């Protein structure tokens, strides 16, 4: 049901007069008495996108609940207490819906895209699919998918997990969003039901609709949807960035993959710093042109760094060392002209990304659930980027370069240790 052969993504655009979107981008948000928040924007496009997100990602797992977020994600699409999974999937198919479930370290998001005429059926299917009954036989059915997810992990995902372990140690963000290879067998369904009962609840939930009527969406979730109310709210454990850590794993390949990162802005902090992180990442990408730079803010911490995958030979160590040193001194590359160029590129990237309704719905849902609960339209974010000074970006770059963490996989003998750089 996932469409994969979409038109090849290409980004290119020229900046036009600002604020033309402000009038068109009418972002509405309301909080229901149950604690659930409903937001929507109608861009007058033919396909509606709905996303329902829960703060139920891997960071919310306790030590005995490793892999639960992954199992919960894969159980979506099964029976709920009121409806059969089979019926719901067929109804979703009948309205031409693509259903997509993702789980990251923060949230589990279930999203759906379908022709907008079908909005009322789509909303009811989404709310019901998001409340799986998690009976023992349901979990049995999804066991195979857990195994194949783990088998199909990309090198980047594996290295990224190593980096998170190095950066956040035993903190919540160090937990893998997926089950480990040793951990794909059967699971106690009652424990998983407990996890779901504490996480898939209204107060931890955000619903976002793109190209739907706000009033209808709101009244549906206020009156007819069955999202559990919270009974015993657990406080979220915080995760802090440690740094100077390394997690290295020997692999059988002749290549090596390395991810290096420093502390980045968090979603809970100042929105301006968050925007400055994006600009710093754009500059870092220009400086480190042969690696790919990533910028990953979490609710109470964040990572800004780069990833590089190469064949391991005599020159590899020197190249990686060079990249690490360039990243350490990223601050020195932040000057007036670099910031101007990076600001323009970042704005275009933000605005272009918002053109894809499905991505917009998921990213808005994530930002509603972030600690600051600020809901910014893409044009607000672009304006924020515009208002940044060189010093704002410098400060983020300085922090990112100060205490590095490293994750490496493959021929790790070619990877220098951080204190040797």
């Amino acid at each position, binding site marked *: 049901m996932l469409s994969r052969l979409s038109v090849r993504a290409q980004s290119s655009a020229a900046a*036009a007069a600002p604020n033309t979107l402000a009038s068109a981008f009418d972002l509405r948000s309301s909080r229901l008495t149950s604690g659930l928040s409903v937001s929507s924007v109608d861009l007058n496009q033919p396909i509606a996108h709905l996303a329902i997100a829960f703060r139920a990602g891997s960071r919310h797992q306790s030590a005995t609940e490793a892999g639960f977020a992954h199992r919960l994600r894969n159980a979506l699409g099964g029976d709920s207490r009121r409806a059969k*999974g089979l019926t719901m999937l067929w*109804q979703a198919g009948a309205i031409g819906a693509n259903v997509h479930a993702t789980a990251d370290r923060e949230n589990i998001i279930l999203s759906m895209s379908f022709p907008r005429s079908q909005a009322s059926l789509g909303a009811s299917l989404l709310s019901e699919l998001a409340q799986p009954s998690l009976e023992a036989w349901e979990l049995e059915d999804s066991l195979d998918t857990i195994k*194949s997810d783990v088998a*199909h992990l990309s090198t980047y995902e594996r290295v990224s997990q190593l980096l998170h372990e190095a950066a956040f140690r035993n903190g919540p963000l160090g937990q893998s969003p997926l089950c480990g290879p040793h951990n794909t067998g059967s699971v106690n369904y009652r424990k998983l039901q407990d996890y779901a009962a504490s996480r898939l609840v209204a107060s931890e939930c955000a619903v976002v609709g793109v190209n739907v009527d706000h009033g209808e969406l709101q009244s549906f979730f206020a009156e007819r949807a069955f999202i559990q109310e919270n009974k015993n709210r657990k406080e979220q454990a915080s995760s802090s960035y440690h740094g100077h850590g390394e997690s290295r794993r020997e692999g059988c390949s002749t290549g090596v993959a390395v991810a290096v990162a420093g502390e980045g802005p968090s979603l809970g902090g100042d929105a301006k710093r968050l925007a400055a992180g994006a600009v710093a990442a754009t500059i870092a990408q220009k400086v480190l042109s042969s690696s790919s730079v990533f910028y990953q803010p979490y609710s109470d911490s964040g990572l800004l760094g780069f990833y590089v995958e190469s064949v391991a030979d005599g020159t590899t160590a020197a190249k990686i060392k060079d990249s690490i040193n360039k990243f350490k001194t990223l601050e020195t590359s932040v000057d007036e002209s670099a910031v101007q160029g990076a600001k323009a590129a970042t704005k275009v990237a933000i605005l272009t990304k918002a053109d894809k309704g499905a991505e917009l719905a998921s990213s808005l849902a994530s930002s509603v659930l972030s600690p600051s609960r600020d809901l910014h339209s893409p044009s607000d974010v672009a304006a924020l980027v515009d208002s940044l000074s060189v010093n704002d970006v410098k400060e983020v770059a300085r922090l990112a370069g100060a205490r590095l963490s490293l994750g490496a996989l493959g021929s790790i003998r070619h990877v220098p240790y951080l204190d040797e750089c």
Partner: protein
Amino acid sequence: MLSVARTGVASVKNSVRSVSALATRDVLVKGPHAEVSELKNGLRVSTENNGRPTTTVGVWIETGSRYENESNNGVSRLLEHMVHKGTGKRSEAQLESELSSIGAKLVSETSRDHTAIFVQSASQDLDSAAIEGEKKHLLSALEEAEEDHMGVVMDNLHAAAFQGTSLARSPLGNTNGIKSLDASTLKQWQADHYRPVRMIFSAVGGVEHGKLTQLAEKYFGDLSNSYPGQIPHSDGVRFTGSEFRFRNDNVPHMYGAIAVEGVGHGHHDALALRVASQFVGQWDVTHGSSYNAPSKLVQQVSHGYNLHAFQNFSLNYKDTGLFGVQFICKGDSLDDATSIARWLQHEWKHLSSAVDEEEVNRSKNALRTQLYQALETNTQKAAFNAKELLHTGGVRSLVDIEDSLEKLDKTAVREAVSRHVYDRDIAASGVGRTEAWPNYANLRYGMSWWKL
């Protein structure tokens, strides 16, 4: 949902119909439409103002590998890459810095029947050192492309299906072709192909048609339509039922595709075949649904045959196309591979004679989601408008497409599939562990024999 579960589907359908008053089609009617005008020299300008803060501007040119021959295969792509090396008016560094100061990126691509260059116009002066550098780049890209097994499958599928015609050639070029290219070939190619009648200047975003037309006049108005060389032509089209296997047991899976000849972009069966293609659907092992999937084919093939993924396709070129399925399986059993092909052919035969109205409606909705979602960004829509102009001479509005989609019924789908798929010759292409590739004659019988 409660009402759905208790009162059944009928009531849901009614409620859906009542809201549909302000629905998909209305949005399309209200939505932005493309404006098209033509400069004196024949260059067509298409703009669509959707009021967004970003804009994609580009040129789509009717060129590509189907106009090439064995000795210059790859020239379109090389020329396209040269655009990034700067132009007569701007050096590479200038070009890059001017574009990046407004946050823009130059993107280009070449396929079998067109080249697209966004944001900046084509080059006029070509420097031979830069050409040599770019040739090396293309040769290494060619090596890398061999690692993309599904890409190789599709290239080989074209090579088999359209053998002896120009559509058989890959836009990536071939090693000998690329090595023999030089500045004069490139200049000749540019002179023959980058002509205003073969070019569409297309923009979507926050743009005014008048302003864009002025820009087009300023930068492209002096291009002439006279042909000192020859007018490029592509040979005719001929589909040959055939097979292309590339066995390499070091590849861990069997990658394959099976297809019949499809239809051209403007053909009246094009939409019906896309609906049929949606009915076949797609699946891979990471999908949550298997036995319970809303597709008969997925239910049948997702277990027991070591299938990893399959994906329908319905490609349309100007005058022909390919309609089929690509798949990845373990490749250790002839029975498994044959069974997968059987189930697929079973769906095609079902489509040709027994598909019912409900099934067609499901597939139409799936196509709506796929089609309209793939036109959400400025770049996607600008490319769509340009290709419509190149292939059909006009830009169909999405309302027109929605209306023709609405009119499609089971008879139209059955007839289209009977005409183009049932008992037609097939082209097959396999890469990797193809020792277990199904027998060609057997596959061919399966296009009409129900009991196979």
